[in-house]
């Protein structure tokens, strides 16, 4: 390791200096000359037919430059969906149009109907209020099962029903699974809801469209996790701008959690409007707009059944899930309940037969898409809850039941199409028992009792698939994109490096972690390395950051590009030292010739590359800049075991988390401090889901949780100090860093142990409670206790 921090060093995050001192440059910090502002008229009903729009009064308001309606977007593309799922019967999913501004109908509260561009943001809002729109309100569908009933109101008139797809996985196993259930010694059934969530990044979405007449180039500044993806989707499918005439910049981004992966109408609108009026057009979401327009997460209703044989071995698993798509298909929505969920149903266990059925449903609600974990939390929650329930029904220890069924040999091909390369679930469970001090639980139970509190212990495991993913595989599964990552490493004459990555950092700490990798490889100070990301104009085509893929895929691309740099640098060094290339070694930033005392420094070589006076010009080109694209050949499979101890106040139902422990296997660790931070944040979000968060619609499709007055976010005092460990590392076998990804684990792994712990507490108190749907609010827990 370089003295000042290569792979494995807990370097402090260099980007935090600017974030914490208010010097970050977020999209809203960008203000362009001549910039004007957009505001949107949004539907206040969940479902309705637009019978008339009169914009004349609005157009006459002070400062108004132009008012746009759906009519302005006729003949222009709609927002595309990036994943096509094929159903159980071999048919492709139903895919409705998703106009930038409503065409004829509005389909959820918040659906944009018209937009005003004006000299100031307030003038734009004033003019929005002057637009006269008449909407004939139609009955709304909110409940998924009701939406599938005969005669239910249709969200999209041109589709045959509200069913997007009916997916079976693995369809060929269906009969065998059913048969296994008939023969099972014991079957445990659980019905549950994985509630709807709002991502709530600290920074709301912002878009600025800009058009340069001199070269006919459009630029979009936007709060995105993946600027190249937005450039491709918006350019090719919505506005018809070729990629060489479109630049997308995502500067500092204040959190995304998935919600900033997707292409949104406001981005297309600002880009379009800027070209129309030849001025930069800016839109900044209010928090209220964020609640009703940012893609929501989760919203699954599931029935899961676990079949066990007479020895308590898992024999088969069967699930039926309804997955809410909302009113339109958000960019990656169809993939979440299918390929990111069904493929994880084996969990950490040897279950030979699995069948997953998912019905994706359109409703008059905000579109639902990937949110931290995306499909994997849904899989983990139901699996780990049903195992816990089975253990209670069978009267066996929940940890023992899990251990008995662990996968112990790797690679392991699951019956749900994926192959785990490595793992050691016994080791993480052993580690968990240690760091959670499970041995001390009984004593703590007595202490709680003495204070009149009900204590409970919940444990769960998780597995996730990260580092999404091999392009050829996702292509077969319906992705309309490749999922490689890219890196360009540019070495300057004086030895410093600029690494241009297709990954995007919006809180992950890439600017600190990526240099550690390169510094380790060359043996130089990481401060000699600068990371550039987030601008399609100066980074190679990349797929962006989500699915805990940045280090596993983006980091691997950086390794590959740096290897190319080192190979070339060795050639130059060989020339300078008049040695043979094969004898050159690079260590601590020095090139040496094996078996001699000859050496040249890294800086001598980089200088030679750009001042090639003494240089093998006949063999190699001058300069030192290389690009690599890395396409992994498998997902990575982080896994772990979590334990939660709660206290329940029997008088009020209030749950407090007293202890929480997480033992994770993330493979190799580049920066343990960043990993701990990612785990802490993930646990906070998972605990938030378990105890607090929920987006609720009433039966008319009105969002009842449209602000923080009613949408409960986790706060510092909702979580305890965490006991975390990531020493049980089984390095990934197929990427050069041996890393697996850690960004989502906490959010995936924590909800089941919280619910398991509360059920445990209530059962110890003699309450016949087998399940409570999240969030475990005081009211819900109290009601469950007093059924």
């Amino acid at each position, binding site marked *: 390791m370089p003295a000042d921090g290569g792979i494995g060093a807990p370097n402090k995050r260099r980007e935090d200096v600017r974030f914490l001192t208010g010097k970050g440059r977020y999209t809203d910090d960008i203000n362009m000359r001549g910039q004007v502002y957009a505001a949107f008229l949004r539907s206040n009903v969940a479902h309705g037919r637009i019978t008339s729009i009169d914009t004349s009064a609005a157009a006459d308001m002070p400062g108004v430059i132009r008012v746009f309606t759906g009519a302005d977007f006729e003949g222009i593309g709609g927002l595309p969906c990036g994943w096509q799922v094929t159903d159980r019967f071999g048919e492709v999913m139903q895919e409705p149009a998703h106009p930038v501004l409503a065409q004829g109908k509005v389909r959820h509260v918040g659906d944009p109907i018209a937009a005003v561009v004006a000299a100031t943001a307030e003038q734009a809002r004033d003019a929005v209020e002057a637009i006269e729109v008449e909407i004939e309100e139609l009955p709304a569908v909110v409940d998924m099962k009701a939406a599938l009933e005969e005669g239910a109101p249709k969200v999209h008139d041109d589709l045959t029903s509200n069913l997007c797809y009916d997916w079976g996985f693995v369809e060929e196993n269906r009969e065998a699974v059913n048969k296994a259930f008939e023969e099972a010694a014991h079957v445990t059934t659980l019905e549950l809801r994985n509630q709807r969530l709002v991502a709530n990044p600290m920074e709301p979405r912002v878009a600025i469209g800009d058009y340069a007449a001199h070269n006919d180039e459009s630029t979009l500044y936007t709060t995105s996790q993946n600027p190249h993806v937005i450039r491709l989707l918006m350019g090719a499918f919505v506005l018809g701008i070729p990629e060489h005439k479109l630049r997308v910049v995502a500067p500092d981004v204040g959190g995304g959690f998935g919600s900033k992966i997707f292409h949104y109408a406001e981005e297309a609108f600002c880009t379009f409007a800027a070209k129309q009026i030849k001025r930069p057009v800016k839109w900044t979401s209010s928090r209220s707009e964020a609640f009703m327009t940012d893609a929501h997460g989760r919203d699954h209703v599931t029935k899961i059944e676990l079949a066990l044989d007479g020895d308590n071995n898992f024999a088969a698993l069967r699930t039926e899930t309804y997955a809410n798509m909302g009113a339109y298909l958000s960019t990656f929505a169809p993939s979440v309940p299918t390929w990111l969920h069904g493929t994880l149903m084996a969990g950490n266990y040897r279950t030979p037969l699995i069948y997953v059925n998912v019905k994706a449903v359109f409703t008059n609600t905000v579109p639902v898409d990937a949110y931290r974990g995306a499909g994997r939390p849904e899989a983990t929650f139901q699996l780990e809850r049903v195992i816990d329930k089975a253990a209670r029904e069978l009267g066996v220890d929940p940890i023992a039941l899990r251990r008995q069924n662990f996968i112990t040999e790797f690679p392991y091909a699951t019956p749900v199409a994926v192959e785990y390369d490595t793992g050691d679930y016994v080791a993480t469970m052993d580690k968990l028992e240690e760091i959670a001090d499970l041995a001390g639980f009984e004593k703590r139970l007595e202490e709680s009792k003495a204070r009149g509190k009900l204590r409970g212990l919940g444990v769960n495991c998780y597995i996730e698939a990260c580092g999404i993913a091999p392009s050829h595989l996702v292509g077969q599964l319906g992705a309309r994109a490749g999922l490689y990552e890219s890196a360009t490493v540019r070495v300057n004459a004086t030895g410093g490096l600029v690494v241009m990555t297709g990954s995007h950092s919006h809180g992950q700490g890439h600017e600190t972690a990526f240099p550690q990798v390169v510094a380790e490889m060359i043996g130089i100070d990481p401060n000699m390395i600068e990371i550039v990301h987030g601008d399609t104009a100066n980074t190679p085509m990349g797929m962006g950051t989500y699915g805990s893929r940045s280090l596993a895929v983006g980091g691997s691309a950086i390794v590959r590009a740096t290897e190319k740099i080192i190979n070339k640098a060795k050639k130059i060094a060989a020339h300078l030292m008049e040695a043979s290339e094969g004898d050159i070694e690079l260590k601590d930033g020095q090139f040496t010739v094996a078996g001699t005392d000859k050496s040249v420094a890294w800086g001598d070589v980089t200088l030679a590359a750009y001042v090639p006076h003494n240089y093998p010009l006949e063999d190699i080109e001058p300069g030192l800049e290389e690009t690599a694209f890395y396409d992994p050949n498998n997902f990575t499979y982080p896994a772990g075991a979590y334990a939660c101890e709660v206290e329940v106040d029997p008088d009020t139902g209030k749950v407090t988390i007293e202890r929480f422990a997480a033992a994770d296997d993330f493979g190799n660790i580049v920066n343990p401090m960043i990993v701990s931070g990612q785990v802490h944040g993930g646990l906070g979000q998972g605990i938030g889901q378990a105890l*607090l968060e929920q987006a609720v619609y009433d039966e008319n499709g009105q969002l009842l949780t449209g602000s923080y*007055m*009613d949408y409960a976010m986790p706060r510092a005092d909702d979580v305890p100090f965490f006991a975390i460990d990531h020493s049980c590392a089984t390095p990934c076998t197929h990427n050069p860093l041996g890393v697996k990804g850690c960004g989502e684990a906490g959010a995936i792994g924590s909800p089941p142990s919280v619910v398991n712990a509360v059920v445990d507490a209530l059962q110890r108190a003699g309450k016949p409670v087998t399940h409570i749907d999240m969030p475990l609010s*005081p009211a819900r827990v*109290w009601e469950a206790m007093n059924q």
Partner: protein
Amino acid sequence: MYAFEFERPSTLDEAVKALGAEGAQALAGGQTLIPTLKQRLAMPETLVSLAGIAELKGISAEGGVLTVGAASTHTEVAGQTAYPALAHLARGIGDPHVRNRGTIGGSLANNDPSACYPAAALGSGATIVTNAREIAADDYFTGLFETALEEGEIITEVRFPIPAKAAYVKFEQPASRFALVGVFVSKGEGGVRVAVTGASEAGVFRWAEAEAALASDFSAAALDGLSASADDLIGDIHGSPAYRAHLIGVLTKRAVQAAG
């Protein structure tokens, strides 16, 4: 936010005059009013700041009465020691930002059904003093966001008789952390008072049965077997009327215990 005029009077008389104008509204800490304006849910023509008026400031305890100027912030109230139960209540409001700006006058004028101060005022038998008159707390709270204040009337101070025993117990609504239910009990010269906030569709109210039970025996045990009615209580995603009714019982007992 819509555009508005802004005035910053330095005396009460000037403020009263300014508030007499059409479309004028008082601005105290702004912790309720500013978010309302930002959401364009109110459209005052003029905001009249009460921040620069010396007559509305200051907290003093004399002759068993705590007098709190209407423009006192929650932080200031939390810092006084003459009436610990009131200080405790103020400390539990919102977060440091809210406490450093929000005022007792603003809270009582607003009379949010989930706010804390209404429970203290009603539960202590306080007197709300305005530029025009003195209003007993029992006559002041008239419903959801409704008070006895007339248009343009300014709360100048609040007088709390300091009871021998008092406590406020708040059970937080998980999202807003306002009171899902909050109960203020006191035992003083005027007898026992139990005021409940957060629970009722009609705003803060006194729980007469509990007061009666506690009058003869000020102990949690005196409340055994007593339950609040769920009729007309709030039901929302955070709790049903039945749950709130249950909490009233639990919190009243806890408040009596805390009052000692």
